[in-house]
């Protein structure tokens, strides 16, 4: 480089507040290297499927393949853990002081948050694909349209947890945020019918479940399999996504104002 520091030259602000493919690639690579995240997001759902889904080959739930039902539920579970972890990464990065370090770069705070959401969604996609792949390899057979529609619903619906993760990340500045919220996620997954079909739960729990954040994405993802379109589920997903996104935005504003 021939320019020197004294030589004035046109210095520009990067486009998109600094958001770019290189940073996203490096972020995804870093997340995929994290052993704890990989175990929770990819190994656990797969093992659950092999333990609790596969033995029910031949059984049916609502007249449909029980194995496929469990597989889709666990794909949602994996995506949920992955996207929550992806969003909650802001907690780790705040506690380490990396966010402060980034303040000394052109990266805009909003661009940073968007990069976290995109990374979380990549992790969610990988989680869905891994569970589906194991399902397919072990003999789950459902129509191509169901694979696609259920997969997309599980993946896109997990945006609610990326927002939830961000909310947690700005709320709890701790490196251990995922350990802290682990039990909460398990209870939410239960209410979402990810471990046991909801109709096997007591009536009162079924009623409560409809208002919890995992319910919508679970129902939406299984709808292509069990038939029909789930309006209540869609409303649930949209409502909770908006709620967590707004809550995260409030905390984010407070955070950037304080620096």
């Amino acid at each position, binding site marked *: 480089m021939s320019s020197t*520091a004294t030589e004035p030259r046109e210095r*520009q602000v990067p486009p998109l507040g*600094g958001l770019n493919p290189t940073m996203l690639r490096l972020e995804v690579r870093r997340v995929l290297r994290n052993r704890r995240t990989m175990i929770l997001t990819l190994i656990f759902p797969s093992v659950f499927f092999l333990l609790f889904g596969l033995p029910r080959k031949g059984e049916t739930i609502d007249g449909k393949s029980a194995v496929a039902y469990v597989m889709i539920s666990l794909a949602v579970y994996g995506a949920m853990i992955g996207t929550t972890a992806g969003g909650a990464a802001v907690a780790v990065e705040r506690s*380490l002081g*990396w966010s402060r370090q980034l303040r000394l*770069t052109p990266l805009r705070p909003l661009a940073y948050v968007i990069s976290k959401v995109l990374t979380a969604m990549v992790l969610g996609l990988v989680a869905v694909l891994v569970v589906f792949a194991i399902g397919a390899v072990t003999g789950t057979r459902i129509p191509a349209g169901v694979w696609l529609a259920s997969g997309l619903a599980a993946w896109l619906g997990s945006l609610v947890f990326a927002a939830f993760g961000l909310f947690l990340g700005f709320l709890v500045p701790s490196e251990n945020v995922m350990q802290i919220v682990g039990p909460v996620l398990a209870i939410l997954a239960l209410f979402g019918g990810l471990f046991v079909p909801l109709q096997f739960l007591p009536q009162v729990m079924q009623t409560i479940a409809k208002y919890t954040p995992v319910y919508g994405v679970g129902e939406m993802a299984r709808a292509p399999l069990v038939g029909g379109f789930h309006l209540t589920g869609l409303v649930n997903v949209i409502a909770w996504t908006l709620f967590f996104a707004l809550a995260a935005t409030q905390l984010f504003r407070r955070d950037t104002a304080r620096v």
Partner: protein
Amino acid sequence: MTSGQPLAVDLRGLTKRYGELTAVRDLSMAIESGEIVAFLGPNGAGKTTTIDMMLGLSKPNAGSVAVYGRSPRDAIARGEVAAVMQTGGLLKDFTVAETVQYTASLYAHARSADEVLDRAGIKAIADRMVRKCSGGEQQRLRFAIALLSDPRLLVLDEPTTGMDVEGRRDFWTAIRADAERGRTVLFATHYLDEADAYADRIILIRSGVIVADGTTAEVKNLASGRIVRATWPGADEAELRRLPGVDQVELRGDTVLVHASDSDAVARFLLTATKARDLEITSKNLEDAFLALTTDTAGAASTATTAGSQR
């Protein structure tokens, strides 16, 4: 100011309060392009608070900040200014090279990762995980990151804290080699030898107020002359004060301390005309200037201020 170029740093009337505490009080500072300035002061003097405001990391309660004529945020976004902070965190699960590549991707124009790793002297550990790097290596990684945009102003906040002697020397060698390209450098430190060895200009701060500002030589001269120290029970203070070139006399029990420009005359007097014994003559150094200017009562502040801070 005469060149028509905007000032590298132009702080005017900065005040920062934290509740009851005023960390920085009506502070003004003008740094020209190309200067290497040491920002010196004891812990808690307001160095980091001032630097935070200079970089837009915190907002002053009063006053204005301009870096190369822009707001700090804008100057950072354009890569005009970069900083190595005491507290800036790094991600432990990136490698050294990944940390640099990630940061480089955020700028509109950046030097190559290889080039800055080389300049910071850490090319050999490019593939090492950050968590496995020593404190000094991590600090040089922060330095490498700061060089990415080829900034016109580099701000360093206590950059060598926690490094061993060799680490400090290597770090400063890298900074110095880099500064030859005409970069403006402002570094906060409480190591006097660093200020003495690497700065053209020293700004001394105490309790949020600039107490001295001038070239290294000027600041040293604020505490010029020598100190003659002797044991003299029942010393005659008035007589000492009448000697030529004596500007300060201090009695501590049986010990007299005489600050004088003509130490020979004082020594001759003490040893020939009095019962003084155990005589010692020491020259003042930057450390004395530092102590004099940062520990004395408020009165010292006004008398010690040189022309430099009046801009």
